């Protein structure tokens, strides 16, 4: 926990949220927890970014929200991926894959090749 946590790259938060929500209806707190857990405590999403992002995605109709009871019996706002959101996720994942490969290529290149 004391190691410095890297920032989530600009523009990828939406994709991460969409990916996590794709697994099934989930509330905001769980989204943050899941991202933290899956990334093995590396990626911590601040609430200040998380909720505006969720609302933005909802506004763009990539997510749909619904108030439901949690397993502890409390009312919470659950987000669910829409068909449009799934398409967006696929597109962004593909895009990310290209970007990742390209960045790797550059980072692995020998000094002289540049």
């Amino acid at each position: 926990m004391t190691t410095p946590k890297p920032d989530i790259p600009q523009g990828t938060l939406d994709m991460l949220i969409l990916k996590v929500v794709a697994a099934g209806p989930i509330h905001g707190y769980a989204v943050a927890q899941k991202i933290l857990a899956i990334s093995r405590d590396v990626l911590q999403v601040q609430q200040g970014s998380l909720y505006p992002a969720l609302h933005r995605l909802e506004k763009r109709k990539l997510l749909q929200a619904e108030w439901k009871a949690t397993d502890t019996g409390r009312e919470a706002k659950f987000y669910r991926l829409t068909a449009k959101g799934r398409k967006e996720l696929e597109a962004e994942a593909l895009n990310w894959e290209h970007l990742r490969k390209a960045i790797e290529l550059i980072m692995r290149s020998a000094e002289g090749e540049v």
Partner: protein
Amino acid sequence: MNWWRRLFNRDRSERQLNAELQFHLEEQVRDYVQAGMSESEARRKARLAFGAVDGIREDCREAQSLFLMESTLQDLRYSVRGMRKSWVFTSVVVVSLALGIGANTAIFTLIDAVMWRMLPVRDPDTLLVAGYTQGSPPEYGFTYKQYRAMRDNTEIAELAGYSPVQLSVTVDGNLEPTLEGQLVSGNYFSLLGVNPVVGRPIGIEDDRVPKGHPVAMLSYGYWKRRFALEPSVIGRSILVSGSPFTVIGVTPPEFFGVEVGASPAVFVPMMMQPTVMAVVENLLENPIIMRTWVQTLARLKPGVSVQQALGPLETIYKSQIPPRPKIPNLAPVPERRLVLTSAATGLSDLRRRFSQPLFVLMWIVSIVLLIACANIANLLLARAASRRSELAMRVALGAGHRRLIRQLLAEAVLLALTGGCLGIALAQWATRFLVVYMSSGRTPIVLDLSPDLRILVFTAAVSILTGILFGLAPALRATRLDLAQALKNRTGSGRTTGSHLRPGKTLAIVQVSLSLLLLITAGLFVRSLQNIKDQDKTSERDHVLIVRVEPRGSDQRSLPGTSQRLGRLYTDLLQRVEQIPGVRSASLGNVSPTKPETGAGGRFLTSSGKDVAMQTQVAYPGYFDVLSMPILTGRAFTWDDFRETSPAGCVINETFARDVYEGENPIGKPCGGSLRSPGAKGPAVSQIIGVAKDSKYTNHRGLYTQAVLYAPFPFANTSRGQMILYARIAGDPGPIIPLLREEVWKADKDVPQFSSVPTLLE
């Protein structure tokens, strides 16, 4: 999109947002507690981790994009509260804005009404007006013969004619104040596509036989004013110039003819010209080339271009111009050409006279508004200094920088819009005032000044721009604050120190002096506007009353004995008018001081062979005095000059003296053929007795002077014996006018008509 509903379900979505964030917080606390923290420790840590709740909430709202609308409403609510709190400041700002915006709106309204407003007729875009040019700006109007020839001989366009005319109307035996009227051709209303609100329009069948169709249409305004909108007016009989006419219809309220600023009240068929203008020549059957009285409108047949139409029409027109008399040593006159121009925005003498002053005024009022903006920006800056702590508090509570700027701008725009609303009201009043100012006594100018969409949009745009203009700088400056410093000030004196105000004070002084300078400029401008008006008058017109005196037979003065009879009548009239209390002096002349078209044009041939264009006008003793035209050398007319046995004498004006005598003393020189011996044929032996200062005349081209020779009535070599009575009065003309009318009435009871009694300047 149900954003509208959601805007007003704001509370619900706000509650849900709070619940969502609260849920997050509590889950976090639960996790911490499960990890072994104490309840209070967990709560504290969770809160810390969460950050500024207000900021998150705001970002969420923004993400939902309801934000702009919602926050604007919120801004406005906040602004209204702020404005109410500092109402002195607010009212100062609003009033100065109202003045600035109101002035702009007023001038814009005038420009709109005079320059841009479309005619209230069908398809104004395709309506054309015909005129002619001799290498000069086009002049409008044709003789009846020219108009008829063009109308009858063309398949490519439909032509309609009209002519403004002053009418004496009698209703129920009471003579009305003189009305503006129009003689219109039978197809005038159908060509314009104007349908009456009640009754029927003047049609082709009402305009066939000279003097054969005593029917009239009234304008809506006159119908309302005089007949209280009674439908029973249709079929009523009224006297126009003493002859009975039947009212057949009323034109719609928005219709004012095709001349912007005119307000004809009565329309009669053109064929009735000899009836309604009894003393003037019958212009239908005996058209004189000089009187181009028929204004001609045209609509081209479908598919015909203006260029295609011009050729054939011009051929017809030219065939109707009589060959010019051959005068030797005369420079060739440029050929006359026909012109067809768009009538979409109406013909307007006003436009000719006032377009430039109006645009100059527009510049001036814009600068006034700019200065008002600078002033208010300065005030806002000063106020921002005292609002520093408030703003700092809001920043500390999580208000975004941009949000604050927007808040301040919203305040500014709200102020500007309030000023704008007040400005519109002010403009209504100001335009009325300006129109009265523009109207010269004879004819009231009637403009459609109701605020239409264009004006409202203009004012709104000006207000918002103004708001942004004066709000932006203070907003930017106010939000660029050092939080800690500002908050500290709050606990201290709570006020900023004097040093902040110093540049503001200097600015204020500069602005006050600038405004003062502008005020002086504006004042000078108004003076020069007044001068424009004054140039065309030779006298202090506000104290001179004019009455046309047109006794029977005055149009045929050359008949035996008529001149002598008229001479006695006029002498008698003058003596009686001078007895009226309040009348200082009175005289008669045969032309109106600004429009000398009724004077006899001619040429003066000097003994050295010089040929000068000049005009002969008829005058009575006291003429130069009443019209304030000083005698420069020699003397003015006396009653001695009016005895038929006296030697004939004339007075000339400066231009005449300069053009003909070129610096020589003209006194004692012959007057030429303008004078004749009474009762005898041929020119009289005559001499010039005096030189009067020039009078300025107006025509379509503007102001001009010309060589004028004034002849005493008995010696004037003209068959036109109609006169205009000028009476210089002291004090209120109100009680004097009826007395004056009565005297003119007495002078010739047989004449059923006389024209208006306007003052030269009201």
